[in-house]
C-alpha cells in the first residue's frame, strides 16, 4: 500500500478529466470524481490543488466541502 499523498506536479490528463467531469455535474466530492474518472484519489486531490490555484475550480462548503467549476455554483439562498 502506498500511503503518501501525491506530491509534485499534477498529471495534465487527470486535470483535464476532472474539469470535464465537473462540467457535467453541479458539485462533487473529490472521491466521487476519482471513482467517476478512474483515477486515484490522491491524483485527483493533487489535480484539484492546481486547478484551484489556476482559478478554474473552487471549493464550496455546504455541510461538507465539495468542489465545483469556478462560478458554477452560487451561494445558496
Amino acid at each position: 500500500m502506498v500511503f503518501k499523498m501525491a506530491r509534485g506536479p499534477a498529471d495534465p490528463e487527470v486535470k483535464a478529466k476532472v474539469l470535464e467531469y465537473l462540467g457535467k455535474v453541479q458539485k462533487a466530492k473529490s472521491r466521487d470524481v476519482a471513482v467517476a474518472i478512474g483515477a486515484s484519489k490522491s491524483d485527483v486531490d493533487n489535480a484539484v490543488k492546481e486547478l484551484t490555484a489556476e482559478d478554474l475550480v473552487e471549493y464550496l462548503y455546504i455541510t461538507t466541502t465539495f468542489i465545483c467549476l469556478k462560478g458554477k455554483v452560487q451561494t445558496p439562498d
Partner: protein
Amino acid sequence: MTEKNTPLLDELEKGKWPSFVTEIKRAAVKSEAAGELLQVLERSYKERRGHWKHGGIVGVRGYGGGVIGRYVDEPQTYPNVAEFHTVRLLQPSGWFYNTKTLRTVCDIWEKYGSGLTNMHGSTGDIILLGCKTEHIQPIFDEFSDAGFDLGGSGSCLRTPNCCVGPGRCEHACYDTLEACYNITNEFMDELHRPMWPYKSKIKFSGCANDCTSSIARSDCSVIGTWRDTLRIDQEAVKEYAAKINIKAAVCDKCPTSCLTFNAETQELSVVGEDCTRCMHCINVMPKAIQPGKEKGATILIGGKSTIVQSAFMSWVIVPFMKMEAEDDFAEFKDLMRRIWEWWDEHGKSRERIGETIYRLGMTKFLNGIEVAPVPQMVFRPRANPYVFWNQDDLDRSGTALDGSKL
C-alpha cells in the same frame, strides 16, 4: 453606538464577569456592522431562533478553507451584516504573541472587518468575526504580508493546537510547541485544501492533565506520558506529610491504588506497572513526585463531539511514541498519513474518523493502518477476559484480575 434598545442583551452585561455584549457595544462605536450585529442578536433572543446562514463559496484563491461564509437571512433589514464572514488565522504555538503582533492583527482587522475577534476559537486559531466578500482577498493578502496564514475550515485538517507545554509548564513530557509547529508545517496541503469526508483535528497536550482537552475534542490526541516509573523525592514527601494527609489526598485517590504511604517511615512507594500516568499524585505533590525520565506521548484516535454518532472520547492506538527528534515526528507523520488514507477510503460524507472506526470496527482500522493490537488499547484490560495475562506478570504486579491485591 447603536441607537436601538437591546434590553435582553443588556441583561448579559450585569454581574461581575466580562460580557461579550459590552465588547460588541465597544466595537459598535467604530463599526456599523457590530451595531447591526447587536440588533440581529437581540432579535434572535426575542424570537428564539437564529438569523444566520453559513457556508457557500470560500473566497481566497487556491484555498479551500480558512474563511467561513456567513449571511444574515434578512439582508434588506440588516445591510451592514448581509455578509458577515468569519476568517480563521493560524495561531502561534502556545498562543505566544508580542504586543506589536497583536496590534498588527487588530489594525488589519479594523481596516477591513468589524473589529470583533475571538481569541481564541475552540479549535485554537485566531477568529476574526465579520467581513464582506469583497474584502476577503485583501484581508488574506495583508495578513500574508504580515506573516500570517489562514487556518482550517471545512473537510480538512483543522488548525492543530497545543498546550503551553515546556514554555511554562514543568509537567510537559514533550515539546508540544515544537511538535505542533513542525507537524502543522508538514500538513499545509491537508490544512488548506479540503479533501476528506469531514474535518479532522489534532491536539497536542504535554501530559495527562490534557489542557487542550484533546481526548474529547480532537480526532487525534497526542498526550504526553512516560514509559518508566514515577520519580519520588522522599525528603520532599516528608515535607508534604507535615502539611497534608498523603494517604487520603493522594494514595486513596489513585485510580489503580499503586501508591502506598508508610506513615512510620514517612515514605511513599509506587508499583510502577500499575500506574496509569493519570497525573493526580503529581498535581497534589509536584515538588515530591515527577514523571519518569523516559518521556514521550500516547497517540489516541477518534475523539469528537456529537454529529452522526454521539460524542466519543479517543482510543489509544500507540501507547508510547518518542516525540523528541525529527525522526520521532516523521514516525507520527507517517502514522497520520496511514490513518487519513484509510479514513479517506472508507469514511462516509460527514463521518469523523471515530465514527468510521465505530461503524467498521477497530480490527479493520488497525489492519488498515498496519498497527498491531496491544492490551493498552482495551478498556480495563486486566478485567477483560479477552486479554490473557501471564501468571508471572500478575505475580510481579501484585494485582489479581479483579483488581484485588495478591
